[in-house]
């Protein structure tokens, strides 16, 4: 089966000084949840916006491959891309409070996307909107459709955003930290909702998050991003069981796991912050924060395979972790 989305060597630069995404490659199959994890500023959101073609005018995107089904997104015109967006590829954002237009009702904003792509009457579009609001667990959808965004809570607004993204039954849903701005109970509801919808609709979900708890719960496959690169990518189980890149290992040590953390032992942390990377940067971008760094890390770093579907970007051999444990 051909993949839903395929990106190869995707790059995004801002001007001549900042490279936000540096050669990201990923493949998404039908019905798969692919989690993109990493710290703030590592290029997760920019990757998503680059796939959507929603980068600002100051950004420059290039890619060897950027395909959605049979569409070559690198060659698609803005109009062609606009026809896909909201119809076959949809996106939800981190900021539910500001992502809806304050001047229009929920119903009008939801109907709009269906009318744009399906050429149906407004009444039909509103019926569809009501149906989807019900589906995401909103009671009294008829009332909500007539309300304005400021009359809804954050959780409700994010549900509206999700149902709006689903109006045209997209094949690919990109969710950029969809629960970060919400409180914990609402987070859990939204995640469960996304899981159910994905199963029912056979959605491919590209879920961007910095929360490893969410990854563990949702992901089929995980890609760990650092300074604009995917430093490790593996099926979720393999990644949690055998993290290989020093950064991934560092990240996992930062999560408190019940029965494994001890009261007198501090939780792990990675010293330093994600560096700003210029386009001409060579070598491993993590080397300044890495305990395993060696002089050769300033030169080219190879992408190695730990197993057939588990790769990582580091000079260390696959079995180095055994040496560390010993």
């Amino acid at each position, binding site marked *: 089966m051909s993949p839903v989305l395929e990106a190869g060597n995707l790059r995004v630069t801002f001007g001549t000084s900042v490279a936000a995404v540096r050669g990201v490659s990923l493949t998404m199959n039908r019905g798969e949840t692919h989690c993109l994890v990493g710290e703030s500023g590592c290029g997760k959101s920019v990757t998503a916006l680059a796939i*959507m073609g*929603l980068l600002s005018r100051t950004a420059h995107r290039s890619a060897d491959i950027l395909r959605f089904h049979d569409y070559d997104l690198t060659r698609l015109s*803005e109009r062609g*891309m*606009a*026809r*896909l*967006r*909201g*119809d076959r590829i*949809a*996106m939800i*954002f981190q*900021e539910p409070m*500001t*992502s*809806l*237009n*304050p*001047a*229009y*009702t929920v119903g009008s904003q939801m109907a*709009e*996307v269906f009318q*744009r*792509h399906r050429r149906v009457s407004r009444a039909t579009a509103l019926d569809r909107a009501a149906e989807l609001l019900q589906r995401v667990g909103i009671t009294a959808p008829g009332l909500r459709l007539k309300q*304005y965004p*400021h*009359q809804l809570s954050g959780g409700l607004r994010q549900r509206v*955003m999700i149902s*709006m*993204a689903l109006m045209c039954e997209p094949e690919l849903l990109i969710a950029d930290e969809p629960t970060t701005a919400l409180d914990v109970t609402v987070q859990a509801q939204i995640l469960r909702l996304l899981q159910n919808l994905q199963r029912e609709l056979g959605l491919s979900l590209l879920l961007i998050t910095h929360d490893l708890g969410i990854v563990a719960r949702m992901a089929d496959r995980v890609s760990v991003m650092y300074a604009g690169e995917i430093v490790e990518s593996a099926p979720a189980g393999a990644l949690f069981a055998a993290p290989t890149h020093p950064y991934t290992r560092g990240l996992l040590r930062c999560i408190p796991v019940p029965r494994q953390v001890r009261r007198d032992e501090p939780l792990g942390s990675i010293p330093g912050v994600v560096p700003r990377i210029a386009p001409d940067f060579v070598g491993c971008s993590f080397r300044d924060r890495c305990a395993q760094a060696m002089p050769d890390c300033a030169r080219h770093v190879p992408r190695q395979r730990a197993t057939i579907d588990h790769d990582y970007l580091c000079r260390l051999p696959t079995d180095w972790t055994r040496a560390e444990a010993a």
Partner: protein
Amino acid sequence: MLRFLLRRAVLALLVCLTVLVISFALTRLSGDLAISIAGPNATEQDIATVRKNYGLDRPLPTQFVDWAVHAAEGDLGRSYLYHAPVAGLIKERMPITLTLGLTGLVIALVVAIPLGVIAAMREGSLLDRAIGLLALFGQAMPSFWLSLVLIIWLGLNLQLLPISGVDTWQGYIMPGIVLAFSAIPALMRLTRAGMIDALSSDYIRTARAKGLSSTKIVLKHALRNAAMPVVSVAAVQLGFMLGGSIVIEAVFALHGVGYLAWESISKNDFPVVQAVVLILAIIYIGLTLLADAMNAVLDPRLRAA
């Protein structure tokens, strides 16, 4: 919605009262009215007669209440110059001034909003800077000078438009352009600033993620949110145009309210001055109220407030 408008209306009424007091006080502050009405060759006796006849010998509060009550009934006194009721004089001239002001406003909006939108969409480009420069010129240009340039160029050299009077509708075009010029820079900059703000907002990103056409994104989603300050300022600008058309009405010989005001100021016809100030102020307040109502229509969040 209703409560919002009601509150604004009560406020407007209070402003009206204040204006009433001020417009009354201003004319009394400009010297002894009896002396100016009686004229330069009047004797003490004449002045005393005038003072008595016009009721200027009464205490100020009495004069004010008398005038205010009459004004509320639509009686704005009699003009000393025209020997006619002031209300009638103003009523006769108001249509000219209103037509002129509205012409100016329409021209200003038709020019300023598209320019502002284009400048915002091409922020930082050469085009944006050129439009900014144009606005600067517009702001710096004195309206009497622009009037004369237009009269010479369009009126005398090209003979496209009449140079004075409003016998035909074409007579409104040149003064309308001049009036518009003073309002365009502010409206243009506000539109540009509002659009830049709106275009970088999260809901515009959502609109783009929905695959909407750029026309719809700009005109439906961005402009609606950028329009509110523009509406408020446009209302104020129309007020300025109505009140500030004195120079232009004089240059183009349009016998509107501005011309009447200019005449009565120079001839000390104080009931007319007082009435013009009052009526322009009321129009101004009405326009602000209208702008509030329009903003409430544009922004649902205001209706709840």
